[in-house]
């Protein structure tokens, strides 16, 4: 019976599933709804009227664009750093044996297990000890710490499934290190890197805690939203931005999901 996918679920289970989904997504729908409200000081229910004017208002606000542009740059650069370092780390840990390999593997994953506030405080004290002024790069460094983990995790899982003899076979057939990377390694781990990169981008894009410690006076998009909630001014603008953030982060996560789902067929070894 268990393998019978067409069998209908019991009624109680359907209710539970629907309840779970509502709990997760109803607040999101409310955010979307108030992006269209005509009232700007408080969120009364139901909204007195619906309008599209906040989209135009948001479009005109320079501070939104500034924050958005900073977030996109931070997320892009952190993801790129993470892609390079995370892949190198994963390659070293999965393809070679050396003293302290297990320890390094654990240390790389640790930053994502640590509460963001610890990472933030640690980075902040490190920056102030080293007399590094807050800048774009301090935010990038903070974000890279957890972006590396995401890339590393994706890459290491894929590396494990790519048989080591593939690389030897490539060399044996006359390919040098660069050709082996380009024709054998990259095609086999490419989707894992893309998925890891997308997740890293999404994580960085809505990161608040580490950014508050390493950003100084700069506002990334999530920080800007937090400030808007405290000092309300044209409140629905925040909702419009929230909608955009949801869409911008949801698309890469969806992409990552589809890319890694088919991973089994891509990385099956020659056994």
């Amino acid at each position, binding site marked *: 019976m268990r393998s019978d996918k067409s069998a209908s679920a019991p009624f109680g289970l359907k209710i539970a599933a629907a309840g779970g989904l509502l709990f997760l997504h109803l607040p999101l729908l409310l955010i979307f709804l108030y992006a269209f409200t005509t009232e700007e000081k408080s969120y009364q229910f139901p909204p007195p009227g619906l309008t599209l004017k906040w989209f135009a208002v948001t479009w005109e606000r320079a501070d939104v664009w500034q924050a958005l542009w900073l977030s996109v740059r931070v997320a892009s650069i952190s993801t790129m750093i993470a892609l390079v370092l995370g892949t190198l780390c994963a390659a070293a840990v999965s393809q070679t044996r050396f003293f302290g390999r297990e320890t390094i593997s654990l240390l790389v994953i640790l930053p994502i297990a640590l509460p963001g506030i610890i990472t933030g405080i640690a980075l902040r004290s490190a920056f102030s000890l080293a007399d590094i002024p807050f800048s774009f790069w301090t935010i990038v460094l903070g974000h890279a710490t957890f972006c590396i983990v995401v890339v590393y995790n994706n890459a290491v899982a894929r590396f494990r499934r790519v*048989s080591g*003899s*593939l690389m*030897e*076979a*490539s*060399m*044996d*057939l*006359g*390919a*040098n290190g660069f*050709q082996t990377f380009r*024709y*054998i390694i990259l*095609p*086999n781990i490419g989707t894992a890197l893309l998925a890891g990169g997308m997740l890293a981008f999404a994580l960085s894009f809505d990161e608040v805690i580490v950014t508050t410690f390493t950003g100084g006076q700069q506002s990334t998009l999530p920080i800007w939203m937090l400030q808007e909630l405290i000092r309300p001014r044209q409140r629905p603008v925040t909702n419009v931005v929230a909608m955009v953030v949801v869409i911008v982060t949801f698309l890469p996560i969806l992409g990552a999901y589809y890319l890694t789902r088919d991973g089994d*067929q*891509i*990385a*099956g*070894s*020659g*056994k």
Partner: protein
Amino acid sequence: MTAAVLFENVSRHFGAVRAVDAVDLAVAEGEFFAMLGPSGSGKTTCLRLMAGFEQPTAGHIEIFGETAEGVPPYRRSVNTVFQDYALFPHLSILENVAYGLMVKGAAREERRKAAEDALAMVKLPGYGVRRPGQLSGGQRQRVALARALVNKPKVLLLDEPLGALDLKLREQMQEELKSLQKSLGITFVFVTHDQGEALSMADRIAVFNDGRIQQLGTPEEVYKQPRTRFVADFVGSSNILPPEFVAQLGAAPQFASLRPEAISLGQSGHGRLVLDGTVLSRSFLGAANRVLVIVNGTRINVMSPAAASIPAEGDPVQLSFDRTDLHLMEAAS
């Protein structure tokens, strides 16, 4: 004539482990050379030293007269058929076979033609569009062979290539490999732990144990005149007689090997040595019977033709064999 592969006092140590220890060997051009031994005996490490995946800790390696130490795998005129075949899962069969030509910069049409010819040679014409995952184990093995041979290597290295195949397919591939080697005239160096495979295919065999070559010779030499107890034990299932027992037979007190099939049950012919013993057990193997006989406390295996009559368990029995079949061995293990 220059040797195809020459090892001079080659060692490869991993920390305290002497995977390969002071090995000398010379593989002749056009030879089918087998490296036989149990797992961990150093045979695969020797193959990897030839391929360039390992570098020797000490000693000197030449491939067709050219020094091989320090030369990376991609600059050696040898190719390998891997134990797990190592086909590239993201490439089609044709792209797999053409890979070596592609990285060397051959034109697209030229490499397609060469790859198709190679596939036809291993009896897989028209399989080019498939993916490795869609082929059976035997077919992947042939693709791996075609992928190596398309580069026209001077030496083809095969790492237990038949290990993953079932018995029938293995026998068929043995024949094919042998005839392929003859028609191409390429030097084959073949690693196996299966003594039957080594005996039936190779021109010469190097028997490995503990990182050293125990014996190097033709299959017949290795089988009939094992130099050490290890070789006698590993190649075939020889009886190894202790020195005291051998002394009683009137020979020098050394370990000696005696092939089970060289012994007959009952007295037969003149001038043969005769032993009295008791049948311990017997088993029917199809073409023959294996009879375990105990003589003066020493167990002796006898391979007797299926047609011969076999005494029952516990019965007294006479064994006879020719003195020349008793082969004395060196004292070293």
